[in-house]
């Protein structure tokens, strides 16, 4: 027994010998990639924390695709769609260095987002950052970004509260602010002679801002706000709150939150047979899932989008083609916004031509006036209390129509972008 035990054991000298050989071996193998990198340039590491699981998983995934496509284009030709005029000699962002995208999943949770942004900055030591999904997460990570002083475009946060009076110096907004959500809907409702409106919204940063914007415009146009109420983010059944709007005889039903909200509100309205003259909801209406889930019930419903595949921004058309080729689906605004946001980073980094000078990169982001595939871009300057707030981007109002037997979104506002006639009033549930 004793002998056996001795044979199985290992003495100190042997241990040292073996570990030393092992370590040397690992070191030699470890050098191989070093040699490989000598030929290639060291990649520029760009980090992002996105909502890949949880409530915002669907839209968070779209955003990831936008970032990925941008990285792909930078790494293959050295510039993104519509940005061929920027200095580029070789593939890569600057000095021929390719981009490596590091995406972490914040599970749609702001506190996790904060943890991951810290992880990206201080542990993974990324060179640059791209913004997360949703106003809630963006708002939560804002202080971390400001403190780390890393220029970070924030593509998918439309709540103006993140910027208003906050003097954000390192994170320009890409999306049009939420106070301008559902553009034209109040004006059009008033023109059609409606008197009452119900505004219901998810109790989160961006829907609240959107609802406040609609409320302000409803007041301005003299509509009677018969219901103005928030519902919890985790709601799964909208019947009680939609019933309230019905009981109060609201002619216009507006608001919502994200995609689940839009589907839930429409289902609820149909199931209690509530047919207001106008139904207008944020975010979800623009997504193909809305139609896939509800079928013909989407007819006449209006909603907004920051972007549609048909818009006339430089590179937008090519973007739609590239996206469709890679992912086998038609892109919507979340991915386009992500791509557009990354383009702002591209513009700034290329103009400065040096990653070390973060302040200069930031300064370009805060002064440049340009177009991306996504939208127009210009933000409040650094000396303004609202610095970083988006001022140039526009939003469209859409409505679901049946064109040639197929369900299709048409733009009904603003007048210069219209692709179809506003169908009024809502023709009821079939």
């Amino acid at each position, binding site marked *: 027994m004793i002998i056996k035990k001795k044979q199985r054991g290992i003495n100190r000298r042997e241990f040292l010998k073996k570990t030393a050989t092992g370590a040397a071996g690992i070191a030699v193998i470890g050098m191989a990639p070093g040699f490989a990198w000598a030929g290639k340039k060291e990649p520029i590491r760009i980090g992002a924390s996105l909502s890949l699981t949880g409530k915002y998983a669907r839209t968070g995934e779209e955003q990831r695709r936008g970032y990925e496509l941008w990285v792909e284009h930078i790494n293959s030709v050295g510039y993104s769609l519509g940005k061929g005029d920027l200095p580029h000699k070789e593939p890569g962002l600057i000095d021929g260095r390719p981009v490596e995208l590091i995406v972490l999943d914040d599970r749609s949770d702001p506190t996790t987002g904060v943890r991951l942004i810290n992880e990206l900055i201080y542990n993974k030591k990324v060179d640059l950052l791209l913004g997360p999904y949703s106003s809630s997460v963006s708002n939560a990570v804002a202080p971390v970004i400001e403190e780390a002083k890393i220029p970070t475009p924030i593509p998918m946060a439309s709540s103006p509260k993140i910027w208003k009076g906050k003097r954000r110096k390192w994170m320009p907004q890409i999306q049009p602010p939420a106070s301008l959500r559902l553009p034209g809907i109040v004006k059009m409702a008033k023109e059609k002679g409606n008197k009452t409106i119900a505004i219901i919204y998810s109790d989160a940063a961006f829907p609240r801002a959107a609802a406040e914007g609609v409320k302000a415009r409803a007041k301005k146009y003299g509509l009677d706000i018969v219901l103005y109420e928030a519902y919890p983010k985790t709601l799964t059944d909208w019947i*009680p709150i939609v019933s309230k709007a019905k009981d109060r005889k609201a002619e216009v039903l507006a608001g919502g939150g994200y995609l689940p909200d839009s589907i839930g509100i429409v289902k609820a309205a149909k199931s209690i047979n509530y047919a207001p003259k106008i139904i207008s909801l944020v975010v979800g209406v623009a997504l193909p899932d809305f139609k896939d889930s509800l079928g013909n019930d989407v007819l006449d419903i209006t909603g907004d989008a920051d972007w549609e595949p048909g818009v006339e921004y430089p590179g937008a058309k090519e973007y739609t083609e590239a996206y469709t080729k890679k992912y086998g689906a038609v892109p919507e605004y979340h991915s386009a916004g992500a791509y557009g946001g990354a383009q702002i980073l591209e513009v700034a980094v290329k103009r400065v031509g040096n990653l070390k000078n973060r302040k200069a990169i930031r300064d370009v982001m805060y002064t440049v006036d340009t177009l991306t595939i996504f939208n127009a871009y210009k933000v409040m300057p650094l000396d303004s209390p609202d610095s970083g707030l988006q001022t140039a981007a526009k939003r469209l109002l859409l409505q679901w129509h049946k064109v040639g037997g197929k369900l299709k979104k048409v733009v009904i506002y603003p007048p210069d972008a219209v692709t179809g006639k506003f169908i009024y009033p809502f023709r009821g549930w079939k």
Partner: protein
Amino acid sequence: MELSPVIYNALIVGIFIGSIYGLIAVGLSLVYGVMRVVNIAHGEFVMLGAFLTFFAWRLLGINPIISIVIALVVLFFIGLIIHRFLVERVIGKPMLSSLMLTFGISIFIWNTAQAIFTTNIKAVSYLGGSVTFLGVNIAKSYILGFGIAVLLVAALFAFLKFSRWGKAIRATSQNDEVALVCGIDTKKVRTLSFALGAAFAGSAGAVVSMTWFIFPQMGFNYLAKAFAIIVLGGLGSIPGALIGSLIYGAAESLTGQILEARMSQVVPFVILATILVIKPSGLFGARER
């Protein structure tokens, strides 16, 4: 105070919604009653039932009402397999083992579902309209859900009351050691109960797919509600789960209508806390032995 139409409306809708929660809670309670396992993966069974219905409808054109039966059967067997090979191993072990195990199963199922079904939000647009019922305008899918719940729960009661296996389940639930001594194969009883619990969750999922929308992580919402309901009704008590779910549904709906939607998820828990203060074992709960 006279019952205003708004309150009456909310009450009826709440009871209907509660009955759908009941389908989920009854299964969870049955499993807890028989084997003292809180099945964290119960919500995932609801999700699987919902996706099953969705794909049967979208790809094969199967009527979602028929899918309720399909989901019931398929989930029964999924439950059977999961219990036989996994859950049975932690029976009689400390509570934490079963919690960890079912939590693991839950994570495994929804992540797999996310990989296969993608994160896209789906819904079955069937029975979306409404009818006037008991003087209230109510969704057809709710009426269907209510009908299914009444039918299945009645069947379960009859099964537990009169059938041999049902009696064995009740005996095991009351005292598994004595049941074993009396010659009941408690292992089979546990497997059957777990499979039945999963089957109920699956059929609830089929109803949910018509009523609300579905996505891979939806299970947790329903698990949280069902768990509150079975605590309210008394852990392990089937009638308790049923009454608890009606109270929960009505409280949720009434709060949303009378107070504010934001409060609708608070009030049921206030009621839960109040009942637990008055009767710590829940409405119908027996004292832990």
